[in-house]
């Protein structure tokens, strides 16, 4: 098998760059011509373009809506693809794309705040506010990563944190101002409707400036494929080059986002597709990825316009940005087996903490657990401010608080164990349970049931969630199995499925569909409607996870030496990875049912455990579960007090309090290690 693969590489590296761009472009062009012809209603195209009759609405629609929309899609597609190519090149990570670096959530948050509390700022258009928000988010990411010399891992990790954090704050605002933000949600979905040439012209200048900048830095970028140490030994300033390339990438994204909102997946898919289609060298990719991105987005947009004019969808808006994901994900999956493994996902930039300190911290964890329980049942805000509850009051509300506390803490344990397993087995510290797509897959199953019009009885919904999670898992196993479950391959699949879910959620939010409120409930991770029986069952699963997880610790430890080494030590590599993933998926699916797919705890708890000195997998798992339970339990209580009487979901609060702690840890350890 190995020999065959090696032999086929020099023989015939297939090259279908031109064919791919050509087919997509031709489809788009034909659809566009048909659309314009219908709309023109007999008027001459050239007259419409150069000397339109302003009173003929058909001509105005062609000139000021259809044509600028085409220009806009081409520009956006190319810009996002270029941004993605640059980011993937300098971070050497196929998962890196500008959208995951915090730009979009930053812009979105800024716009949300502006629309709610300073509407005069957005009266003149969203561009400036969105650009400012994206810029601040970007500065934050760079600021966090700068102290670690902009290492590829630190940039991605910082991006993830800023991403999750801004996203969580947006959700928190959204919860209580849902309907105010309907317009913003359309923008968030990436609607490309145009009403004049002004916006595409503005975007054109921004993109051109970035293209010029790219041409200037293209030479040093080429050597990045060799790895950090090689680049440095060649005498190129790693930090500065990486910074420059990322800056271009971020400015491109910010320009696009501020003009049309989020266009999912093009920045991730186009460079990958270009590489798979045969653009092996950076210079080729810098040309072909933007071409492919433009063609991809244009074709998608034309199809979207055609579909949304049909009877079935005419009550809803179909935002193009979300549809790109629907189209891009299967395409990426199809081509994934051809993707070559990217090195350097396992980076060495993780700070190592001394192991000795762990023992001294354990008593504190026990104290924390007691405090959280006391808070949960004893202290709360009421009509007359803070008070300690009397036994009668505790008894009266116990039916309500006990299942909540148990559910929140079980979810913390479940996610912490799943997160540790996944981070260890993929050797990727940015891996969180949702990155494997299992929770999104489960949620997707529920969404499909809802939209298929089936009666949402408990049994059917649970079956849907389970089927979604299992399908995701099967896909992971089928595609990942060919690569012996190589971590990067799995993460790509997971990111694809998560993107699919996010796309559907934002499409629903933007469309004005009445099921939007229901989806919001699912996304924010509230424990409000948890049944007592469910929380006890979840606690049982969490305990099972705590027993089964450490049993796999030996495998995990051996696997961390690398697959060949582990194999020679007698570990059945594929089977071990399969077992670990199965367990992680089961735990994640259970947690999804409790608190929705917002699983920041699964990312952060293992980190905190490691920074506290838990290095061995089994120990890390236990410490992480204590941290996870504490965090979620405290978050559940805090969520009920902070905006009393409005309740904030536990998953959201956990994200808000966990984020700064993770950042502080990262910064402190960096200072210590330099």
């Amino acid at each position, binding site marked *: 098998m190995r020999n065959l693969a090696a032999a086929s590489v020099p023989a015939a590296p297939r090259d279908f760059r031109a064919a791919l761009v050509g087919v997509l472009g031709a489809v788009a062009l034909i659809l566009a011509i048909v659309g314009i012809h219908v709309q023109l209603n007999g008027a001459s195209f050239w007259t419409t373009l150069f000397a339109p009759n302003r009173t003929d609405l058909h001509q105005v629609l062609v000139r000021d809506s259809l044509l600028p929309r085409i220009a806009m899609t081409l520009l956006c597609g190319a810009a996002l693809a270029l941004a993605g190519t640059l980011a993937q090149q300098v971070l050497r990570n196929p998962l890196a794309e500008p959208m995951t670096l915090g730009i979009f959530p930053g812009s979105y948050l800024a716009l949300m705040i502006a629309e709610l509390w300073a509407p005069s700022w957005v009266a003149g258009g969203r561009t400036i506010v969105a650009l400012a928000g994206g810029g601040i988010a970007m500065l934050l990411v760079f600021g966090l990563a700068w102290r670690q010399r902009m290492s590829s891992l630190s940039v991605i990790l910082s991006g993830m944190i800023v991403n999750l954090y801004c996203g969580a704050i947006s959700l928190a605002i959204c919860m209580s101002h849902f309907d105010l933000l*309907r317009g913003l949600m359309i923008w968030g979905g990436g609607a490309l409707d145009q009403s*004049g040439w002004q916006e595409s012209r503005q975007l054109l200048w921004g993109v051109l400036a970035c293209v010029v900048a790219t041409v200037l830095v293209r030479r040093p970028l080429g050597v990045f494929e060799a790895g950090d140490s090689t680049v440095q030994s060649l005498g190129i300033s790693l930090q500065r080059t990486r910074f420059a390339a990322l800056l271009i990438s971020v400015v491109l994204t910010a320009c696009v986002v501020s003009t049309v909102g989020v266009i999912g997946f093009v920045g991730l898919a186009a460079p990958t597709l270009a590489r798979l289609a045969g653009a092996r060298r950076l210079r080729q990719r810098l040309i072909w990825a933007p071409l492919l991105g433009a063609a991809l987005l244009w074709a998608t947009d034309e199809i979207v316009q055609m579909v949304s004019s049909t009877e079935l969808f005419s009550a809803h808006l179909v935002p193009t940005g979300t549809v790109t994901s629907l189209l891009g994900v299967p395409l990426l999956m199809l081509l994934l087996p051809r993707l070559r493994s990217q090195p350097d996902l396992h980076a060495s930039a993780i700070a190592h903490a001394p192991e000795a300190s762990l023992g001294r911290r354990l008593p504190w964890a026990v104290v924390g657990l007691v405090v959280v329980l006391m808070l949960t049942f004893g202290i709360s805000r009421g009509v007359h401010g803070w008070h300690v509850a009397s036994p009668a009051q505790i008894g009266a*509300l116990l039916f309500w608080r006990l299942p909540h506390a148990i559910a929140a803490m079980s979810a913390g344990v479940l996610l912490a164990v799943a997160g540790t397993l996944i981070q260890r087995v993929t050797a990727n510290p940015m891996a969180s349970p949702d990155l494997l797509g299992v929770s999104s897959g489960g949620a997707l199953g529920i969404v499909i049931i*809802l939209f298929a019009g089936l009666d949402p*009885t408990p049994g*059917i919904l*649970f079956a849907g969630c389970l089927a979604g999670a299992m399908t995701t898992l099967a896909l992971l196993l089928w595609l990942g199995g060919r690569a012996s479950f190589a971590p990067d391959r799995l993460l790509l699949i997971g990111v694809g499925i998560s993107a699919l879910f996010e796309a559907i959620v934002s499409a629903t939010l933007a469309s004005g569909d009445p099921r939007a409120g229901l989806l919001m409930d699912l996304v924010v991770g509230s424990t409000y409607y948890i049944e007592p029986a469910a929380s006890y069952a979840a606690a049982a699963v969490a305990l099972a996870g705590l027993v089964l997880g450490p049993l796999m610790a030996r495998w995990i430890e051996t696997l961390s030496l690398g697959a060949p080494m582990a194999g020679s030590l007698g570990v059945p590599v594929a089977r071990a990875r399969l077992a670990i993933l199965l367990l992680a998926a089961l735990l994640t699916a259970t947690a999804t049912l409790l608190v929705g797919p917002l699983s920041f705890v699964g990312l952060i708890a293992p980190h905190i455990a490691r920074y506290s000195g838990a290095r061995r997998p089994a120990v890390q798992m236990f410490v992480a579960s204590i941290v996870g339970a504490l965090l979620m339990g405290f978050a559940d209580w805090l969520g009920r007090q902070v905006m009393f009487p409005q309740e904030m979901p536990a998953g959201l609060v956990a994200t808000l309090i966990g984020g700064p702690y993770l950042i502080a840890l990262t910064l402190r350890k960096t200072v210590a290690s330099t």
Partner: protein
Amino acid sequence: MTKRVIRPASRIPRTDPLRRRLLAGFGALGAFSMLDAFGSASAWAATQTQSTSSEPAPHRIVTLNWELTETLLALGVAPVGTPLPDWYRNTIVEPPLPASVADVGLLYQPSFEMLQALAPDLMIITPGHAPAKRWLERIAPTLTLGAYMSSDTPYPALLNETGELAAKLQRPQRATDLIAATDRDTANVRAQLGARPARLRVPVLVADLVDDRHLRVYAQGSLFDEMLRKLGVQNAANPGAGSKPWRTEQGFAMVPVQRLADVQQASLLLVGPLEASARAGVRKNAIWQALPMVRERRIAVLPVIAPYGGLVSMQRFAQAVATALATIDNGGGGVA
């Protein structure tokens, strides 16, 4: 916080409880369902029964929905608590909500601490609260109303529910009076418009301006559509108005501004408030400026009216339509 107004309509119908059902399903696995008994062992007020006509009328009422709060107030009773009272003041407006009404938290996640402290004797909930009903009934008996908002014919359903609530409050005469007053108002406006056929010459489109290039149009299945029919005004989004019917989901169609090219003959009534950004945006929108209804100033802005509100909102809608059509007829329409 700026003074801005919002309409909560889209989240009222069927916003239900997916997760709870999921969890119920999860619980149905049965692993530990025995323990459920532990949760209910602390029953505090589980013995509440449905009130019968011999009992005194409830007087400490909590409403978990703003539209139902409107109907309650219209029947002459003020609630002791409702979720986010400011939202009522911004979206429903009339009848005014007393300042003493307490905030009980989020619409679908009211705070149990707060509810318990208020000690209500009746809670008015919607079908969306069904998953929490069992827990809410530990605090006080509940009455489920508001299904009219997701009905295909919301107006007759609204009349029924108004009567049902009045019966529960033991003041049926108030409902009869309210319905009669609404009928009278509607008939007056219809007569007033009928006397000026010029104002009924073209159909109208009632919509929200969502942003500078999208509209939410009220079509078949919305209260506004049924009110237009009662007023003798043609809804351009409906069959029989000379254009193909607009497909809706629970009375709404979310459409880009370009869609207005299908109904060029119609006048446009925008339900208030108009966002400053949307207002500024449409002025720069080339398509908007080319629309016949914009060039011929056949646009008017209505005040804030809840699209799924009760009969008071519908009375205000009838008046607002009459005023708007008069404004357009006099050539004074526009969004500026």
